[in-house]
């Protein structure tokens, strides 16, 4: 994917909706692409989580054992809380079909945030909405 394509995708993700696109370009520069095939386990419940995933294409489900907690398609974010507070994953995530993901590691996120403090402002605003509503972001179930 081109950087501009990644930025276009990130710009459509609610979590980064208020982050300036030039900052998203820096973020896109450190995000890796990861291709998964149907049935691949992207993350396992209880594993330490230190990365966020953005679904570019395909479909995945967050589940606890057999119980499906959420399904996620293009534009969905998985594990966003791990960027701010690494903790064991609360659910497993498995690809339902061949999917393309962008991966953002916490260390890389921290580095970009060092140069672009406005990134944290955008993310905090996003999280505050859920705190106010007394809910958690969809992807945070993972």
């Amino acid at each position, binding site marked *: 994917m*081109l950087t*501009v394509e990644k930025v276009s995708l990130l*710009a459509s993700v609610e979590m980064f909706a208020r982050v300036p696109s030039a900052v998203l370009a820096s973020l896109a520069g450190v995000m890796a692409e990861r291709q998964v095939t149907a049935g691949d386990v992207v993350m396992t419940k209880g594993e330490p989580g230190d990365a966020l995933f953005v679904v570019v294409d395909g479909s995945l489900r967050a589940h606890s054992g057999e119980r499906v907690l959420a399904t996620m398609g293009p534009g969905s974010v998985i594990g966003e809380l791990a960027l701010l507070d690494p903790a064991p994953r609360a659910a497993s995530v498995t690809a339902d079909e061949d999917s393309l993901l962008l991966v953002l590691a916490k260390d890389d996120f921290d580095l970009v945030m060092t140069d672009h403090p406005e990134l944290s402002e955008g993310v905090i605003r996003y999280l505050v909405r859920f705190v106010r509503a007394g809910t958690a972001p969809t992807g945070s179930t993972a």
Partner: protein
Amino acid sequence: VTAELRARVALLTTQGLLLGLTSALLIVPVSAIFLQHYGSSRLPYAYLGTAVIGVFLSSRISGALQRLSLIRLGILTMGGAAMFIAASWVLLRTVDAVWTSFGLWVLFPLLLQLGFVFIGGQAGRLLDVRQIKRYFPRAVLGFAAGFLIGGVITIPLAGRLPTEDMLILTTVAAIGLVASFVVSGRRYHSLLAVADAPHPDGVRLRASSVLRSRFVGTVFIYQVLSAAGSQLADFLAFDRAAARYSEAGQLAQFAGVLTVLVNIVDIAALVFVAGFLMTRLGLRYTLMANPAVVAMFAAGMMVTGASVGVASTMFFILAASTRILDTVFTDGTTRTSVNATFQAMPPGDRFAAQTAVEGIGVPVGLGLVGTVLIAFHALGWGTMAVTVTMVVNCAAWVIAGTVVFRGYRRNLAVRIRRREIVPLGIRLDDPETSRAIDGLISSGDLARVRLGFDLLGEAEDERLPAALETMLDHPKPELVAEALRRLRAAPTPGAVTAATSLVTAEHAVLRIAAAGVLCSSGCPEVALPLLADPDREVRSAAAMALRETGSAAVAAFYIREWARSADAEDRRAAARTLGGVAALDDRDVTLMATLRNDPDETVQREAIEAAIRHPEAPVLDAILSGETPRRLIPIIARFLVSRGEGNAELMASGLRGERSVAGIPRWRLARACSAYSPEVAYAVVGPHLDDADDAVRHAARLALHGSGWRGTADDVELRRCLDDDRRRAVALLGAIAAIEPVDSSHLLVRGLRDALQAHTVAIAAAADLMTAIPVASRVARLSHSGTAVEIATAEEALEVTFVGERRELLVAMLRPGVAAADRLARLGYTVPALADVVASLIRNDGPAADPWLRVCAVWWLAQHPDPTLSGLVTGLPRQGDPVLTETAAAVLAAS
């Protein structure tokens, strides 16, 4: 304009109309009865009566504000006036009580002024400040129309009805006004029919207390001078008419013509000019328009009077014209301007101030004129003396207008300023607080116990040592450690005994705390074994404590050993210990330099953190040497700030790009300069206020602001800076306006909007450097998160704080919810051609040049091919920026 706003304005206009109608229907019969029985020589006494009763009434109304709502007060006051008129009619009809005409004559100006106080008070709650400026003239227009209608109604009635019977119509009109207040109260119950909350300072608002405020006091003086000016203009017109027309019929005809003329010109001005003047000129000029115009004519009268005499036709025409113009400007600008000034006050204080200013100011003005006229009559001074008085009054009135405007500007800025948190002194002398503190200390919870100790400490309470000693026996180790830590500065015998026994305690926190107490109490030898403690934290704490005592050499030996250790944890402990000692020696500095360049990033971080605690030590070169991992840059920047102004030259050269300062980005260097004194900050970041790099430019402005530096509106550097900002704003707005209609969701539009947003913040930061209170930045913030009233107040503050091109730029950039094309038009530019915009962005050569916008513009061509522009992309893949290169290659491949 919403339907709700229209309804509110219509209601206020109706009330103005009913007030005008009542006033006209009152003054016509009353003047006839009064003048017939007492003559015009008694008028000054009526003015004095108005002053005394007006001051008394308005004071009572101010005092009643905390018991009664605005609308209830209005209903009671206007209802009382209606009853007074009705009772006067009964007395006139039954016992021919002509003396009641004196009371009715006094009532006329009071009714008019208090009517406007209540209508204006409602406007203050139903409209924001910008709506008041724009729509309050309509309520005044309603008044003028009502007055005209009232005057027209009385013409056919005169001679057909006994004069006093016209008071029946007056009563009916007054009841209509009361009814309109009732409707207002019902419709806007929560805004108008609820009594004000008690004042936060516990002050009971009274006219006298309100007038002690400097701002209200100046508005009051302005109002007094305004009322006096109008009264003098009125007097001079009728005085000259009386001298010119000896026949009562001729005089009445002149009065009729003048009244009709005044009202027609007044209504025309209110319909066509007043709103425009109020919104376009702003309070700076509208507060001074009335006195300036009247002063001009009064000066003309003075010159004419001195040259051709006060009996000349020219003097008469000037006097009549002054009377007309004064009414026009009073209704068109003065009433609305005075009303708007109250919006610069806290909402709870506004109506009390308005009552005091308008309710008392006008009667006082009339009273002063009455007194002056009586005095002039006694001294045998005539028309010329009154004319000179009027000129002097107008000059003072203009000055008062300037002072009121300055106060308004200052108060508005204060109103939108972020609330400051003022620390309150702690007092623990009441039993309830003491019980609460005891509860905190005995809670067993570390956070609560700390708070309890902090409170006792801040209040310098003598119970603190005993409370700390008591805590030493607590079963929770963290609470004992907390108490020991606090006793370290002045160890008690109990603390030393406890510390000695805790050297071998199981919990590390206790051993750490014990080391501190033992070393500061002169027993370091007891703490020596802790240097070999299995816990690194304990070893580090012991070394720090021992460095302060006679065992410094031993501690230094251990610190060096840790620094040489292969274990990064030990090296980190060494760095941490160096940060905790009171003063570094040369060997410590060398050691710190070694740790600063440690292969382990966490050790580097600890070393820099330690250096921050020793701004006096010569560690600058050591810390700035070597490569800095990106994540350590913020703490290196913090280190530079902690060094104070000694490194200003280093920062300046780093900002100029002459040398790299530990790899810290230039914008971070600029931001760090906010810790400098204003002069040093300006010397370092001043040259970068219009830096080509957006981030540096913005950081320089914020740093300068943070340092407390303030320029003036005439500062050459700031003016040049804002001129550059204007060019970039125009380029960005033009680009958005050209591209948005074609594809509003494209990344390029988002990029441009982001750039515009960042640029707007930078413009506000630069503008704030010109003012004592940061108005522009606050407006920028409120325009995104404020309520409608806050936004309106903030915009008004912006408009009155800045002038000329700067104001146009700030208003165009900061007003929320305005399309880019409209902002551009406000700046006097048209939307450029799309192809030119894209070409300029790709060439990266215009005022909107930006590397990321360049990439976005190239990407734009992928979705919106343009053969005339594709040539610009051909050479780009060989350029250095990897993102630009890959994007251009993709665009070319696709084409």
